[in-house]
């Protein structure tokens, strides 16, 4: 279940991917492979290239050089609709332009698939329940709070039922309970065989749910491995330039990162 490359299981491969904006390298020759049945957390400081990496991997952005292969085919060769049956994306911006109902927005996740009213209704119901927005299904999406809108977009991704799932900071607008719930559902998708890639800022959420953590720093991979391998004091302090303590979670047995304050050290 760790990040070791396995050509049979690898559903997504980035090879020498570089992205430059105004001559500055946002991603610098990144090689990464992602396997089915895994949840990978992409972490790193602001501007490390996490969202850019996700945009390249999901086909939103063509890299300046390098290749991205999804399920054996170059990303550029996919048709929009078949690609949407293969990968789903939760972006950071999920504003909806007109007053569709929550259920209508979630049901749009079914559009890439051939219509099947009964199965579609069942899948949409399940997605609404999983994202804990079943009670909001008749609401106008433009009247939702930030967290509710974010869970609606997450439910739309769930309704798309794809083998590859990209989530860009899915917990940004969420309260503690829903942060945990969203990652538990993402974990469940991976356990059912999906390849899930999540951009996260909260290292403890990453440690608690991911089986692999990739640390990006300045457009390069600074560390890649299991939470225990990656979340060491040395790595975190080097990448984030912030003193931390790495403890052990008392019940989960995973690394627990807390801020250290050298001034308080006696």
């Amino acid at each position: 279940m760790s990040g070791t490359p396995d050509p049979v299981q690898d559903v997504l491969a980035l090879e020498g991917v570089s992205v430059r904006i105004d001559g500055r390298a946002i991603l610098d020759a990144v090689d990464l492979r992602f396997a089915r049945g895994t949840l990978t957390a992409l972490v790193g400081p602001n501007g490390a290239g996490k969202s850019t990496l996700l945009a390249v991997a999901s086909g939103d952005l063509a890299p300046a050089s390098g290749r991205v292969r999804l399920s054996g085919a170059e990303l550029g060769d996919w048709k929009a609709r078949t690609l949407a049956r293969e990968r789903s994306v939760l972006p950071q911006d999920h504003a909806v332009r007109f007053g569709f109902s929550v259920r209508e927005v979630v049901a749009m996740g079914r559009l890439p698939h051939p219509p099947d009213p009964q199965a579609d209704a069942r899948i949409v119901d399940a997605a609404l329940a999983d994202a804990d927005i079943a009670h909001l299904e008749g609401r106008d999406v433009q009247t939702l709070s930030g967290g509710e809108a974010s869970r609606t977009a997450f439910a739309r991704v769930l309704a798309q039922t794809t083998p590859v799932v990209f989530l860009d900071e899915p917990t940004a607008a969420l309260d503690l309970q829903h942060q945990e719930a969203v990652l538990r559902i993402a974990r469940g998708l991976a356990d059912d065989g999906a390849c899930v890639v999540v951009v996260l800022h909260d290292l403890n959420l990453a440690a608690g749910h991911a089986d692999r953590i990739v640390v990006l720093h300045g457009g390069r991979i600074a560390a890649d491995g299991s939470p225990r391998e990656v979340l060491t004091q040395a790595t975190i302090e080097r990448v984030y330039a912030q003193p931390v303590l790495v403890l052990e979670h008392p019940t989960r047995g995973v690394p627990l990162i807390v801020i250290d304050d050298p001034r308080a050290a006696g």
Partner: protein
Amino acid sequence: MTGASGAAMRRRTGLVRRPPGGLLFVGLLALLIVVIVLSFGIGPLRIPPGDVVHVIAHKLGLADAGTLSRRDISVVWNLRVPRALLAVIVGASLAMAGAGLQGLFGNPLADPGIVGVTHGAALGAVGAIVLGATALGAWTIPVAAFLGGAATTTLIYLLARPDRGTGTATLLLVGIAIAAACSAAIGFFTYIADADDLQSLVFWQMGSLAMANWNSMLAALPAFAVGAVALRALATPLDMLALGERQAQHIGLDVKRARLMLIAVCALLVGSAVAFAGVVGFVGLVVPHFVRLLAGPGHRWLIPLSAVAGGLLIVIADTAARSLDPPSEIPLGLFSAALGAPFFLWLVLRRRGTA
């Protein structure tokens, strides 16, 4: 204003309640037919509804002329019937184009007149008239209007793309600039035009159905039919675009292709309306807005309902335009602007927080 208070209520509860689209469509269509038949009898020469129905039945070969006067038959059949049908085509085209452009730009203020598409189409038409282009015979002016509309839509799109962080303000400012540029070019053509052309140029800029006849109605019909069917076929892509271009791509929309088709279809609808009625503004703003309040934003019903409601609005406005101050006519464009401009202002002010 039940629509507005309904919206306020909805904002409070946030709950989406909608009557079935099919029922609304049938209801509005029935209303449109009644209004059309009534409009045949209204004007400087009043004709009772019974006689109107009699004339139509007679012309369709269902009844004898009987006691009908030749004058009544001629006024109804040669003037008012084609004019009302052309009014429906023009209103439906502009309202549907408004719904389509709003979907394309992800902005409910994107009316063909406000963002400058109408002016582009008018420029195409005026240019063809003044330069005396006849390459395509009777189709020259409609085709020129379509090309002008397509060029301006593309330009506006390139300058105010919805996903480049450009908001409502950019779209409206770009629209103002393009409308001004087109107006200047139209002014130049007016300046170099000879007296014969001048008369029809005034017509382009004021908007009017006074020149409607069976020929113009039948000439406008094909572009309208193709545009209406094509835009309705783009209903699902339009729904997807409501999530933003990037997310639309994520759920399987070929955004580049959808964008090109929307530009072409909206230009076709605006171009054919402008070619036969000149610049009639605000229909594309007002009608889809009220249809959304009534039936929701789903384009599967928004487009056909906007078509029927737009037709209804222009039939009523044109009937008023030609009968309020006989024997002269109030230009239709002045009418629609007088009604639409305050509404536009209200919409802008209401959206201030989000623009």
